[in-house]
């Protein structure tokens, strides 16, 4: 597994964790609010673990997470989208979890034992996220609003995975393969997110301890 791909995984988890956290306090159901916020936090925890692996024992995971410019992030456009509607938000969560499962499963066979080990650890927590996403998918899949959201997000979802893993996503989701909105490009929505996400970090003098 090359570093750029791992950085893509970490950036996906950080940015999606950030986006999903935007629902804290305003999710449509109280119980779901708690669950959704907790999943968002887990994703940020996964990002942190991957940044730490990439930074190495003497490196700085925070610097990797927050000190790059928006165009240096490797996240997929899917996770950047500022979604203000629950059908799209839960459709993205489901599409992302299906894609992420394919990616993490592949990583568990990585030749680097540190990468494979971390993937297995992430996978154990993701099992719960998948159960949550599948539960929503099961309930909403016949709803036109949800179906429309899935179709709109589908080209973005394909962009989460490298070309060789997309076949598995196509068969799991049941939509035909279309032109993907590829990683490496960014939506206009990343820059404002980055502004907010790195605001505190940028405001502090270098070397500040928290």
């Amino acid at each position: 597994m090359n570093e750029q791909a791992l950085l893509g995984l970490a950036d996906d988890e950080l940015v999606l964790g950030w986006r999903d956290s935007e629902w804290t306090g305003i999710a449509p159901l109280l119980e779901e609010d708690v669950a959704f916020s907790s999943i968002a936090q887990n994703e940020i925890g996964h990002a942190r673990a991957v940044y730490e692996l990439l930074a190495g024992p003497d490196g700085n995971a925070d610097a990797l997470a927050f000190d790059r410019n928006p165009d240096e992030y490797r996240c997929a456009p899917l996770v950047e989208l500022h979604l203000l509607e629950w059908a799209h938000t839960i459709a993205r969560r489901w599409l992302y979890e299906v894609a992420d499962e394919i990616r993490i499963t592949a990583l568990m066979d990585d030749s680097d034992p540190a990468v494979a080990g971390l993937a297995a650890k992430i996978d154990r927590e993701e099992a719960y996220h998948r159960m949550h996403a599948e539960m929503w998918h099961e309930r909403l899949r016949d709803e036109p609003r949800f179906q429309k959201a899935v179709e709109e997000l589908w080209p973005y979802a394909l962009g989460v995975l490298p070309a060789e893993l997309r076949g598995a996503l196509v068969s799991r989701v049941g939509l035909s393969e279309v032109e993907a909105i590829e990683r490496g490009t960014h939506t206009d929505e990343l820059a404002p997110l980055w502004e907010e996400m790195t605001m505190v970090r940028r405001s502090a003098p270098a070397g500040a301890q928290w």
Partner: protein
Amino acid sequence: MNEHPVWEVFRKEKRGAAFEHAGSVVAPDADFAEAWAREQYGRRGESVALWLVPRGAIRDVEDWADEFDLKYRRVDGYSIKARLKEARERAGTAGAG
């Protein structure tokens, strides 16, 4: 998703412990109840097992007829304090003598 049933949540803190009532979740079906109860009562290691019970499945018992004041049937219906004190004094006297 309105007017969902309430699911009472019981949790077991450690192996061998008894289940205790922890609280409740409002959820449309057992799967949602499980997902949300896991989140609120289990995922930070505070429980080793949960029971989820739809509130409607619980038989509520709270009317107690005690018209004849039969408290003498209860073990705490008698005070043995005074008798115990007497017995201790006798034993103490016997020990000294």
